[in-house]
């Protein structure tokens, strides 16, 4: 097993243990729920990084088409969508107890939901094209659109308007006032750990897809 996989295991176990037992500042309303910072926020960090990997591979595909690059882009989107859906679910649950509602028409929340819909459409688009090369090319182009829509929706729009969500509407979020140094000691390892977990899942699913591709190739040669 590669070294970064051991690192993933250590960081995740550290996050789970220290995420509960470590010191967090005493804040009204949030109370102990601020520990969600170690679990909810890394989902979005992980998703963004993995989707960035995906769009890079989509661009690489368009420059130099190969089934491998298409697989890399596709599997990355799948992992990214899982992380995004988990982020939405955990965020909604947290909102219920911090803001008193499961969902509210907030720019940050809606931006995140629209992002997931855009990437959901990526998967639908892939599923609806039979020809492999056409599917790979179409989804690579759509991938670029999806990523360039996601970044403003997640990180730019919410900053321009008022939002309940930390880090938005001129609110510097956790980083400035609330995130003290003891939380940082857990938060950064948590972000790295969860992101690496996503990379690991993507790596395994890509390798599986490569093997599948190889077997199909062999079968086709046998038939020919």
């Amino acid at each position, binding site marked *: 097993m590669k070294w970064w996989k051991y690192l993933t295991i*250590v960081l995740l176990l550290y996050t789970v243990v220290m995420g509960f*037992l470590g010191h967090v500042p005493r804040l009204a309303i949030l109370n102990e729920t601020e520990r969600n910072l170690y679990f909810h926020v890394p989902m979005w960090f992980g998703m963004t990084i993995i989707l960035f990997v995906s769009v890079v591979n989509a661009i690489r595909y368009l420059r130099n088409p190969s089934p491998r690059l298409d697989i890399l882009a596709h599997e990355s989107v799948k992992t990214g969508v899982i992380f995004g859906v988990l982020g939405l679910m955990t965020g909604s649950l947290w909102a219920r107890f911090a803001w008193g509602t499961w969902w509210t028409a907030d720019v940050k929340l809606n931006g995140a939901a629209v992002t997931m819909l855009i990437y959901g459409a990526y998967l639908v688009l892939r599923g609806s094209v039979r020809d492999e090369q056409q599917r790979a090319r179409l989804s690579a182009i759509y991938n670029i659109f999806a990523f360039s829509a996601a970044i403003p929706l997640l990180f730019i729009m919410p900053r321009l308007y008022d939002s309940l969500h930390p880090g938005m509407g001129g609110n510097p979020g956790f980083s400035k006032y609330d995130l003290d140094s003891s939380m940082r000691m857990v938060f950064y390892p948590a972000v790295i750990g969860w992101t690496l977990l996503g990379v690991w899942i993507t790596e395994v699913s890509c390798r*599986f897809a490569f093997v599948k591709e190889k077997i199909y190739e062999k079968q086709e040669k046998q038939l020919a």
Partner: protein
Amino acid sequence: MKSKKNNWLSRAVALLLPLLLLTSAAFAQTSAAEPEMADALRASGKIYVVVLVLVIIVTGLLVYLIRLDGKVSRLEKEVGE
């Protein structure tokens, strides 16, 4: 192969144990009529139950992923990747 695995395990334990011990600092804290935190839960020591549950879940998922990883590796060898 076996010793390598044990070596890694002991290293992981050696890394995590001091971290667990460090958390005793968290117990030392007492509230001063400030925002309500899970002090009672902590005092009764039951937070460890939750931590253990999560450690079990995360370990279980990781073991599953490690096994999947191994299976794909074997498949790769068979196909000759």
